[in-house]
């Protein structure tokens, strides 16, 4: 898999074309599975890990029936990749930061369209993930369920009737499922209602995390909502718990945007215009500032206050201005201050304006 080529496009899940995609960026489902006949990762020896990796590579890469699911699996040995490449995969949300930074035999099998990725030897032996643009949890569940069945056909997973699928950490045991929806909530942040939203979500056992999942900051006003409970509820119930709350959050965000337009349109428009202006002309700019300003620009495009720029472009800019992406796109290693210059240059070029029916590149 050529990272330089991959760097020039963005995964399907970013195209911004799914349902409710002005506010819902993506829907993601992850399953945790372990082989029954090996210790969990924390207790596995180096040779265990190598064996597990080899068995699972063969199962997942050679998946019979993957074609029927529209998947073309490509294997990547994460242990052999250099740091920039690993960081690149993290930025594209194909592997977790933990997977990039840990040690020992580990891999990921991804599909060209980047709608699915299977991590081998992360916290559990297998972490299967599917990602779709917009709000599409039912489609995502059907896909990942079928994929899980295909892998399980030739593999005995650790499972017992009482505790379900057995995982390294008890917080994942049972269904082993993490259902997440990523939302863009800039108006709730501006109107200072976001804390209230967190507290009510916590009351119904939903977790809120930043753009890159566990332990990440909520930069760019992106928030991932996901279930915390994995035991005692079926996968359908958990999906419903998350999907029931999303329309409520979408509604809050839309109301907050309407409020800003009614009560302080000039201020809002000014904020968006200044953000756009800086991104279009800065000569050097940090990643943090970029995320912050792009968030306003994204909202501006949604509200029709910025023309000549399409949502897929903005979505792509969030990813392409990240450190490893910039280095892949220029084909060079860059230190932080060079990256800031390159980032600004990239933004100027891409915000000069899209033709009306922009294609995904």
């Amino acid at each position, binding site marked *: 898999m050529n990272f330089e080529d991959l760097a020039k496009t963005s995964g399907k899940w970013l195209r911004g074309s799914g349902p409710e995609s002005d506010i819902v960026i993506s829907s993601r489902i992850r399953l945790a599975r*372990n*082989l*029954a*006949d*090996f*210790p*969990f*990762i*924390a*207790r596995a020896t180096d040779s265990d890990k190598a064996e597990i990796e080899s068995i699972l590579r063969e199962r997942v890469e050679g998946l019979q029936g993957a074609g029927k699911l529209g998947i073309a699996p490509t294997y990547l040995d994460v242990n052999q990749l250099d740091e920039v490449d690993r960081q690149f995969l993290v930025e594209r949300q194909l592997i977790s*930061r*933990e997977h990039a*930074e840990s040690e020992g035999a580990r891999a990921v099998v991804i599909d060209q369209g980047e709608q699915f990725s299977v991590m081998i030897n992360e*916290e559990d032996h297998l972490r299967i993930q599917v990602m779709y643009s917009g709000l599409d949890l039912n489609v995502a569940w059907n896909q990942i*369920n079928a994929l*899980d*069945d295909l892998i*399980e*056909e*030739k*593999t*005995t*997973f*650790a*499972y*017992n*009737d*009482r*505790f*379900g*699928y*057995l995982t*390294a*950490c*008890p*917080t994942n*045991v*049972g*269904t082993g499922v993490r259902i997440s929806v990523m939302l863009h909530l800039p108006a709730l942040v501006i109107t200072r209602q976001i804390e209230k939203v967190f507290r009510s979500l916590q009351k119904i056992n939903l977790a809120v995390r930043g753009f890159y999942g*566990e*332990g990440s900051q909520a930069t760019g006003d992106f928030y991932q909502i996901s279930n*915390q*409970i*994995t*035991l*005692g*509820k*079926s*996968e*359908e*119930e958990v999906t419903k718990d998350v999907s029931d709350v999303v329309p409520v959050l979408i509604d809050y965000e839309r109301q907050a945007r309407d409020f800003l337009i009614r009560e302080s349109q000039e201020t809002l428009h000014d904020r968006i215009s200044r953000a756009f202006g800086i991104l279009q002309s800065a000569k050097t700019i940090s990643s943090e500032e970029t995320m912050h300003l792009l968030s306003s620009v994204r909202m501006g495009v949604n509200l029709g206050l910025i023309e000549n720029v399409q949502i897929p472009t903005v979505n792509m800019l969030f990813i392409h201005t990240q450190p490893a992406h910039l280095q892949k796109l220029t084909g060079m290693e860059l230190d932080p201050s060079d990256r800031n210059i390159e980032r600004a240059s990239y933004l100027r070029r891409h915000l000069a304006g899209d033709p009306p029916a922009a294609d995904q590149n």
Partner: protein
Amino acid sequence: MKCQKCEKPATFHITDLIDGEPKELHLCEQCAHSFLAPAHDDSSEVMPAMAGLLAQHLAVGETAEELARLDQRACPVCGITFLEFRKQGRLGCPHDYVCFQKELDPLLVNIHGETQHVGKVPKFCSVDAEQRTQLIRLRREMKEAVADEAYERASELRDQIRGIECDQQSED
């Protein structure tokens, strides 16, 4: 009773084990919170939550001796001790859910509100998962037998292992 770290009243009475020696701590809610959460390493949200839950749960009603005994218990399949699990927040192998079931039950209620799995069941191989888990122990014992040059024992173990692996294949 006053908190051992500040002047507020102590509401948390925690039994900690330091180098195998039990130590009683009496802390107020705030100091208990800082004590239970690790000072560094925020790469995993789960670890502090797990360590905190375990420490709290175990602190209630367990005497120092009971805790020390519990910590020494090891899984016969992978060898992990309860203390190791408590410290790292991660289990060692699928069999831990069987041998530490009694201790895990209240922890799971704390996290999930339930202890019985409801939902997807593996379609193809659910019956012999536990048997396959025994392979972990058999393989480990075979390696040890070879290292000790107890070749007859190693050969018995190898036959046992093959038996289980063949059962699996004949079902496919």
